[in-house]
């Protein structure tokens, strides 16, 4: 075992470094990712080690960054692109949804798109407009894309490696407010759990609480608080948002009979809505209550001084748990 205690940001750095070393077709592209090491310093040191041909500082043009990565992928490269903040991915939305997601299909399977699009994800950091978005449902709705949402350092390292190895395009939603939270990483031991599987991180009997990425600490905190009231929540980290690992979630719901989903994105049309609908269909006779969602409101992400009211917090999740158990 060579486990190392690393912040999530540095676990991703290690994942990128090891991927660059393992395959000379891997290259990184993005704004300020070279000498500066990225605005969050996730690519720190990689430019010095691998040079400007493999760690490419690009012009400030998101559609151009993603669009050129398509051409590089056709040529046989495995581009890993960084979008500085989640709200800046929208200028590249056309390239991601009409090109990256569809090229494999359009070429009858002859061209692969092993592109990774890294996006710092979520709010709660007191940032200005466009720096705290949760676009996962927009991309999860697009066939051809995969989405991973690590919530801890071990997943951050391995999902980075596995996303780069994947022959399909992968969007990596990195929990930006947890970039500096440390955890054990073992880069020598490939995890048994597939990156496309959810993980039951805390067993429980009274209800299932599903979350991902930046919401995972809240989910675990909520489970501990509920336990003090004698309510045992089973907490699941979805990990993969496209595809969602329905079998693992459904198995839990069949055990507990209740499901609460919490995410930062607006509830309306969010990924929680899709999961709730599918779980209702699959587990209807096991459910003892309607699926409850606790998330953002149907609003543009608010100015930072109001985000505490917008984002799910302990009280809102526990309120959701109460509503769930009322039935």
């Amino acid at each position, binding site marked *: 075992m060579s486990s190392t205690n690393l912040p999530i940001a540095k676990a991703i750095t290690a994942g990128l470094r090891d991927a660059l070393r393992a395959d000379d077709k891997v290259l990184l592209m993005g704004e300020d990712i070279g000498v500066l090491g990225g605005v969050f310093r996730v690519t720190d040191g990689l430019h010095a080690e691998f040079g400007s041909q493999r760690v490419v500082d690009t012009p400030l043009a998101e559609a*151009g960054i993603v669009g050129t990565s398509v*051409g590089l992928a*056709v040529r046989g490269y495995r581009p890993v692109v960084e979008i500085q903040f989640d709200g800046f991915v929208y200028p590249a939305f056309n390239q991601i949804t009409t090109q990256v997601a569809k090229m494999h299909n359009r070429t009858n399977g002859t061209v692969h798109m092993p592109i990774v699009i890294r996006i710092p994800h979520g709010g709660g950091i007191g940032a200005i407009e466009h720096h705290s978005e949760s676009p996962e449902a927009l991309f999860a709705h697009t066939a051809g894309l995969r989405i991973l949402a690590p919530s801890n350092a071990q997943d951050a390292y391995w999902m980075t490696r596995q996303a780069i190895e994947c022959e399909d395009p992968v969007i990596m939603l990195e929990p930006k407010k947890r970039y500096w939270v440390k955890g054990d990483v073992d880069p020598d031991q490939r995890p048994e759990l597939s990156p496309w599987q959810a993980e039951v991180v805390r067993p429980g009997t009274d209800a299932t609480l599903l979350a991902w990425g930046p919401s995972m600490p809240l989910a675990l905190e909520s489970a501990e608080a509920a336990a003090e009231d004698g309510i045992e929540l089973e907490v699941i980290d979805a990990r993969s948002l496209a595809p969602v690992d329905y079998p693992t979630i459904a198995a839990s719901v069949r055990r507990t009979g209740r499901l609460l989903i919490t995410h930062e994105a607006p509830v309306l049309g969010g990924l929680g809505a899709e999961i709730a609908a599918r779980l209702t269909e699959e587990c209807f006779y096991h459910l003892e209550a309607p699926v409850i969602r606790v998330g953002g409101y149907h609003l543009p992400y608010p100015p930072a001084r109001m985000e505490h009211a917008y984002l799910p917090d302990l009280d809102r999740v526990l309120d959701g748990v109460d509503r769930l158990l009322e039935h």
Partner: protein
Amino acid sequence: MIQLLAADGTRTPHAELDEVLAGRGGEDDLASPQRLRGYYRDMVMIRAADLEATSLQRQGQLGLWASALGQEAAQIGAGHASREQDYLVPTYREHGIAWARGIEPWRLLESYRGVSHGGWDPNELRTHPYMIVLGSQAPHAVGYAMGLQRDGVVGTGDPETDTAVLALFGDGASSEGEVSESFTFAASFDAPVVFFTQNNQWAISVPTSVQSRVPLAQRSRGWGIPSVRVDGNDVLAILAAVREALDAARAGEGPRFIEAVTYRMAAHTTSDDTSRYRPSSEEEEWAEKDPILRLRRHLEQLEEIDEAFIARCDEEAHDLAMALHHHIHGMEDPDPVGMFTHAYAEPHPIVEAEREQYLDYIAQFEDEGDDVGRDDAAEQKGELA
């Protein structure tokens, strides 16, 4: 505007470009009589296929067709100016480019007929898929060119090794932001890419004059990308300009931009109605500049073409159109189960589950003897297992 052939077929000498056309001599001479006859044949062939495709659409055999009538010289010229190793990135109207790259016309029609979203392997034929979302392919071209740089196949001095990318889009697409971003990337990284815009005067119903205050060729200059404006109905001028630009890109001199001034003789697509927005006098004016007629006149002046050759070309073109007609009429609809095959390269549980669900659904109809025109679902499920 660069022009080597006047509308009446008269050849205008050009010191620099004539040298480009002559190439290294011998088989590389792009303006040899044999080559000129070849371009003429190609243009006649692709026009026949194009007209037949329009006819097939009117017969209900195609969902849509985007004609390239009038743009044959721009496309056949640009296609033949490229070298085999170059990668070409077309839009959805590049039938002459496809022909020059050896893509059979019936493969172009696959997407227009609705049996597939694409018809060829881009890497095998070094030609990107047809692109519907305007301008989206331009950054792909630059990215591919950046890959060429990393592969060390730019500026080696070996003409068999050095490679470039030809990115094609129309005047309408040149208004898209992604084209501008592509200029930025190409210039920033000195990417070996030649942007080739066919200005066919109309973006559906919007004329170029509404899209740009300046000739399109001037646009790239703001990025420091050298550009030229070429008569797009003059196959020799196109050949020379594109070959010269691709040679420069292959040599590591960075990107170039070419505006080919041409005319879309037909409608934007078979759904369009040109009578609503453009005068017939304009169409008549441009008919005089017909690129096929122009080359024929030039060959006649050179006494390098005779009635027998012209008749043979026409006969071949007719045969091609008939073959296309029969091929499309005989083309069976694909098994819908195939739509589940290439959404992802790696196994995907949701898609697999939905495929199973679909097979179960259609299996219900088999017991009822309902011929839904699909393969035996049970058998397919067995194969999957």
